[in-house]
């Protein structure tokens, strides 16, 4: 177990290095205008060159890459150019992290509890009314792009329920709708897989044996079916981190939540390269470690997982 975790951890570290390098090099492909606030046209070529030299953008790419890694280890990820000129990027982002983090956790907890409950309910009501209702919900959420239904939720649910349309950090009720919106996709996913695994288990022979022994339906459900259905569910936990990240970017921007996702959309529109680069890196690293934690969790949940297997099928 420890050996597996360590190996998986080093694998993640290597992935982080590859991703950081690739992102940095891709960002170098951008036109250099992005490094001037809005003064590009007013400057003489000499002044432009001086500024580019100050940022180290005229060095060959491998020197730039080396300098970039050196400054990362010194905790310096550059300064914002347009969003808030000359403020260190990390200082801007530091204020945003708590919002994104709380919404992410809230959404994951919500989708896990509601999704599993929904899946169990569907498996018990298989083929009956509620099963159909929840199935329609799942098809709808999976088929319609989230960018569309989330917009309509914001537009009409706020109108119907009188909930505020924009986020306000001091009023609790403005937290409700964004958190629920973020959890919708995850809920549908968990419910779909939970139902599938529960139905799989219900069709197995040992259930008939348990019935023959005289166990009650409730006992069978709790002791056998649910426990066995949970194990394959664990494999969807890592991906759900990625889902939450994707959803949060759109929703934070939609409800003007002062989190990292909203900031990313904002700085992309304003073309503030150092901030875009840092946020992309943070999200990528979050994704990598989300998957890492998920794999470890899965190994804990499922004793049958082959820990010694090298590479290949994961």
């Amino acid at each position, binding site marked *: 177990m420890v050996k597996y975790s360590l190996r998986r951890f080093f*694998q*993640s570290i290597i*992935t982080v290095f*590859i*991703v950081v390098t690739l*992102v940095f090099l*891709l*960002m170098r*492909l*951008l036109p250099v205008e992005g490094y001037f606030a809005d003064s590009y046209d007013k400057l003489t070529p000499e002044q432009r060159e001086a500024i580019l030299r100050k940022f180290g953008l005229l060095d060959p790419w491998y020197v730039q890459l080396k300098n970039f890694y050196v400054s990362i280890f010194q905790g310096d990820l550059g300064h914002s150019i347009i969003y808030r000129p000359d403020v260190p990027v990390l200082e801007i982002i530091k204020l945003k992290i708590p919002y994104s983090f709380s919404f992410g956790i809230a959404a994951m907890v919500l989708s896990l509890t509601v999704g599993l409950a929904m899946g169990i309910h569907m498996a018990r009501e298989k083929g009956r009314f509620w099963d159909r209702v929840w199935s329609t919900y799942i*098809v*709808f959420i*999976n*088929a*319609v*792009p*989230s*960018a*569309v239904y989330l*917009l*309509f939720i914001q*537009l009409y649910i706020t109108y119907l329920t009188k909930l505020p349309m924009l986020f306000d950090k001091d009023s609790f009720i403005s937290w409700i709708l964004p958190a629920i919106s973020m959890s919708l996709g995850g809920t549908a996913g968990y419910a779909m897989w939970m139902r599938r695994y529960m139905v799989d288990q219900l069709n197995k022979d040992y259930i008939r044996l348990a019935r023959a022994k005289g166990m009650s339906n409730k006992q069978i459900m709790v002791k056998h079916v649910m426990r066995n259905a949970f194990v394959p569910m664990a494999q969807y936990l890592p991906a759900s981190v*990625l889902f939450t*990240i*994707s959803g949060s*970017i*759109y929703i934070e*921007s939609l409800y003007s939540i002062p989190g990292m996702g909203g900031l*990313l*959309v904002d700085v*992309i*529109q304003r073309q503030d390269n150092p901030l*875009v680069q840092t946020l*992309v890196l943070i*999200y*990528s690293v979050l*994704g*990598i470690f989300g*998957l890492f934690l998920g794999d470890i969790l899965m190994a804990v949940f499922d004793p049958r997982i082959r820990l010694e297997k090298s*590479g*290949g*099928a*994961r």
Partner: protein
Amino acid sequence: MTSRKKEQIVQPIEDQALFTFAQYDPEAAERVGYSGYSYWGSTVRIFLKNKTAVFLLIMMMLLIAFTIIQPYLPNQKHPNKIHIDPETGYQLRNQRPNEEFWFGTNVIGQDLWARIWSGTRTSLLIAIIVGIWEIFFGIFIGAIWGYVRQLDALITEIYNVINNVPTTILLMLLTYIMRPSFKTMVVAMCATGWLGMARFVRNQIVIIRDQEYNLASRCLGTPTSRIITKNLLPYLVSVIVMRIALSIPGTIGWEVFLTYIGLGLPVDTPSLGNLLNEGRQVMMARSLRYQLIFPAIVLSVITISFYVLGNAFADASDPRNHY
């Protein structure tokens, strides 16, 4: 009761024809050995039983046909033409749906009906190009990944690196560093789209390759081409078609998302994402909401139809559901 049953059983059978010897008939012998099973026949039969899917299939075919021929129909307006009132000389802004403009006009006086169909054309075209790329590149990589054992570890590592980064972030980064255009959109989606397909094909090939029935086929001297077409492909086809059907709603969804962020197609190219974004900007005025609702309805009908169709086809083409 029992005695009566016995009576029935012991009743002599009168028909003497039952006890004559049968002649050897080569045709009848052939018929016993032949099951009449055809993979595509069964697939189509089971698919046609799903009435919803058949309805949606017909509707989608009509819709696609309509988006293609719409510009050539009489009395259609150009999607980018700004309409001007001949009397006052002002632009016909925010006209509610009427006889002249069936879906109304937008904030600068362009015909929403023409824009929606033009946008559907653009979005579907992107989705189909990405879907086709996904099949060819995904299957190619997946097949190499599954068959060539020396490359397994290398491709797995490459896959892990790309897959570890959230797709959203990857798409945003790629569209951010390139100039907004149709090509950018297609390239970015193609760069991320093949991952799922490659992984799926690889896993299937690894599972099926060494199964007993394939081993048996090989021992009986079946040529590789026949093993591939008869033993491997039927298992893959179902999910390949399903993935294409599902990749269409996915691609349209990404397009809408990227447009919202400001990384979408240029504004002079109508697409469903651009239309929704234009509609979103005026959605707070209740009387202008039709500009958001019309594109949203068209988009939802398309994505839901493809999603349901994909699932229905996957069920129909799964050999385990055949009989």
